[in-house]
């Protein structure tokens, strides 16, 4: 466990007054507060440190203990025993609002020295909403095609969630009440899940539409015919018009991706034909092409 220099974290020196501490805390909190830096884990970590430093230095009792034993935190317990023995005053109780529920995880150093959770010196039992958790869920494109249930593990807890069909890569959904526990009877925080959807299929997705390029043999392209296509929803028969050009596109209405939270609605599937020129022609085939070229 490393010593944590709370003065350094707040950018102040040991002679700082209560006002200096408050100003330094507020200045840094305005920069790193998670409310002002959504989805920024670094900011959250920095803020936890700032909050912890403020929690200690803005409380005269904790500051005294920290100043006296900070670097020799192992002796803090002896200090406590001595303090209990000499206990004469009930200690000052702050009534000002300081810290925040984002304080969340305090360092081992803090818990070793001061024990328990932050805000212990508050006179009021403020109800605080629990911390919000974030998590990432990786899916394959095909998984996002149908609504299904999935069990995920967040902070050691298993949660069963419904993944709605049509969810997009990068989309975030909120699972209410599955974040950190509330403090003093406050409500639980929420869980935010970001979906990361990998695509190893032949289809490319843009919104609800799917795009695919498929190979088409020259003869079917010239003469027309029927081909069987694989879609995410099974096979479909597709008519190919005679004299289909390379790069031409056809739209298969309603064969795209399901529309998020709109049951029965689907985007379209766009097929681009890539016409394949035959190779390894026999002499006879070459002769026929020559005749065609001359005709």
């Amino acid at each position, binding site marked *: 466990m490393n010593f944590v220099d709370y003065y350094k974290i707040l950018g102040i020196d040991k002679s700082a007054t209560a006002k200096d501490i408050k100003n330094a805390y507020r200045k840094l909190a305005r920069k790193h507060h998670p409310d002002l830096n959504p989805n920024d884990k670094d900011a959250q970590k920095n803020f936890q440190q700032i909050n912890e430093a403020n929690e200690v230095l803005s409380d005269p009792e904790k500051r005294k203990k920290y100043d006296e034993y900070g670097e020799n935190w192992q002796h803090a317990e002896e200090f406590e025993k001595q303090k209990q023995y000499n206990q004469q005053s009930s200690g000052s109780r702050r009534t000002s609002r300081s810290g925040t529920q984002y304080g969340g995880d305090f360092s081992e150093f803090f818990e070793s020295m001061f024990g328990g959770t932050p805000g212990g010196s508050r006179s009021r039992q403020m109800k605080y*909403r629990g911390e919000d958790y974030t998590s990432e869920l990786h899916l394959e494109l095909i998984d996002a095609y149908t609504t299904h249930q999935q069990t995920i593990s967040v902070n050691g807890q298993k949660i069963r969630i419904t993944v709605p069909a049509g969810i997009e890569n990068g989309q975030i959904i909120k699972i209410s009440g599955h974040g950190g526990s509330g403090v003093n009877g406050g409500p639980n925080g929420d869980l935010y899940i970001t979906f990361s959807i990998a695509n190893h299929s032949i289809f490319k997705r843009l919104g609800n539409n799917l795009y695919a390029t498929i190979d088409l043999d020259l003869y079917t392209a010239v003469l027309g015919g029927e081909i069987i296509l694989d879609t995410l929803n099974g096979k479909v028969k597709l008519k190919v018009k005679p004299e289909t050009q390379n790069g031409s596109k056809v739209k298969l209405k309603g064969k795209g991706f399901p529309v998020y939270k709109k049951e029965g609605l689907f985007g379209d599937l766009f097929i681009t034909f890539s016409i394949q020129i035959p190779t390894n022609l026999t002499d006879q085939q070459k002769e026929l092409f020559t005749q065609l070229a001359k005709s």
Partner: protein
Amino acid sequence: MNTEYLIAVDQFCACHDIEVSFIHSLQQNGLIEITTVENTGFIDAEQLRQLEKYIRFYYELDINLEGIETIVHLLQRVNAQHQEITALRNRLLLYEDDQER
């Protein structure tokens, strides 16, 4: 019909130990909505998360109402841009895949 969960402004303020005038100032600045039922002001539970954020800005970070308004506006823009980036990244995948072919 949707059920609305309403919290009395007085009760909310007592619980958070804040002045009622602060809630009214937020309402006057268009940052929250207050529903009045039989002369009592209520806050929709849907607004709680946002309201608690404003309380942190005001009481913990010492940001005044004008500052909160500006922050809210900027955070909305950041959020919109974040969504746009996600959409553009998804669109970019179409072309990146083409180059790999």
